């Protein structure tokens, strides 16, 4: 049992480090899209929510699952779309575009 937990912890800690490495390179100009985009990624809970909503355990679990699916999906769709909308606004000086 504990072994399983340790495996998951390894994944978690290493992913945190990857996160630190990757995010440190994001320039301040893009911090708002970074937040909304990473927000959409945190909507990954949708994967768990879908299973709970579809597993037909008990009525209460299904309801909780469906509400979770709604919340997570708002997060995913809203987050990616608004980030896309924002990022399309960032433009370089006309002469310097490559």
């Amino acid at each position, binding site marked *: 049992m504990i072994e*399983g*937990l340790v495996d*998951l912890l390894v*994944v*978690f*800690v290493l*992913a*945190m480090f990857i*996160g630190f490495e*990757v*995010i440190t*390179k994001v*320039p*301040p100009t*893009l*911090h*708002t*899209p*970074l*937040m909304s*985009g*990473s*927000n959409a*990624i945190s*909507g*990954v*809970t*949708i994967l*768990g*929510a*879908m*299973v*709970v*909503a*579809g*597993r037909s*355990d*008990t009525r*209460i*679990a299904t309801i*909780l699952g469906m509400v*979770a*699916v709604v919340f*997570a*999906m*708002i997060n*995913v*769709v*809203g987050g*990616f*779309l*608004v*980030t896309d909308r*924002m*990022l399309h*606004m*960032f*433009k*370089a*000086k006309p002469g310097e575009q490559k």
Partner: protein
Amino acid sequence: MEAILKLIYLAAAVCFIFGLKRLSHPRTAVSGNQLAAVGMLVAIIATAFDRQILSWQWMIIGIVIGSGIGAVLALKVKMTAMPEMVALLNGFGGAASALVASAEYIRYMTLGQSPPADVAVTIQLSVLIGTVTFSGSLIAFGKLREIVTGTAVTYPLQKTLNAILFLGTVGLIVWLAVEFPLPYILLALAGVGLLLGVLSVIPIGGADMPVIIALLNSYSGLAASMTGFVINNHGLIISGALVGASGLILTAIMCKAMNRSLANVLFGAFGAGAETGTSVIVAGQAIEQPIRQITADDAAMLMAFGKQVVVVPGYGLAVAQAQHEVRELAELLEKKGVTVKYAIHPVAGRMPGHMNVLLAEANVPYDELFDMDVINPEFEHTDVSLVIGANDVVNPAARSNPESPLYGMPILDVDKSRACIVLKRSMRPGFAGVDNELFYATATSMLFGDAKDSIKKLIQEVKEL
């Protein structure tokens, strides 16, 4: 099948990492975000074929409703309202994680077996972090919308109450880990989480919002990660950890930009009006000094005949929604041969990068926007600094006055430029409640009024030159 699903989740996580990596430059950022979205889509489709799923009905209804709401929000929201949007999304993410973890608890109850200790603890952490994120984000949303007061709310025994709640939370977690099933105690834990979220954001003042939004962003990721521990899903753990790391980095950057510790932001109740006696005296002295007002045509002349003008935007620009006017003014000045640059303080506005998004919306090229460290040496060669609705981030007291609550915070050195024009509604002090000696400096002149109106007047005057 199980293995294939795991591989697909791994692929999705790789998409997220590459997507975030491509956010390191505006040119590649659009494709990065799309890559992450594709990763998510693939993971969602794969999950729909998970063998545990027996009925698709509720799942699909949920997906349709959620996607609809999300799409409407994303397409309708104004760029000035981005902080609210992000706050809301943070909250929803947290809520979803808490709900999934709760449903897992119920599953163990129906199966009639107690979860192993590690799963029990992660269920509780998931519920706790998720609910704190949810209610905290809603309060942050309310503050940004000005439904809830933007000032720091303090009340007697605040710290004692928080300490009691904290101990209570630990107690509940231990109890839940030892005994099973205790559904009402789990519900109580969720209640305490909601309360903690409200109580920890209520005392945060408006200008500290960038820190809180970044922190809640991190929480929403950590909640997703905890849920991953509960359901043994690497995809959730990795993605949640990425977001958790991202939020933590932004939190640290924001704190550094204000020269304050996270603890000070969370518990300091900055801007509650309970400043020390010394700063009140400083303010009292300052009010005695005269200020210079400038008319729009003089200001226009000053800028149009200079070599370099640096625009310093603050939250006031967002409130007045004057970003398009600012760009128009800058273009007119550039036509007259003036170099126009924008100086962006890390905590200007209500969330990290708030000003950059606003100016991007108004078509200001991102290479005209300069970070504090880059632009500060330039102020000495700047003819006019045009400060629009910024206050604390240009207060020289942060450099010179050890008595000031702002002392030590890195600021934009606009006072070093030859002239400084401040667009402001009134002489009301900034968020920190500290008077700004910049306004009384001999090189500074004030142009009072709504930022949008003032800039429109400036545009008119520059055109007539």
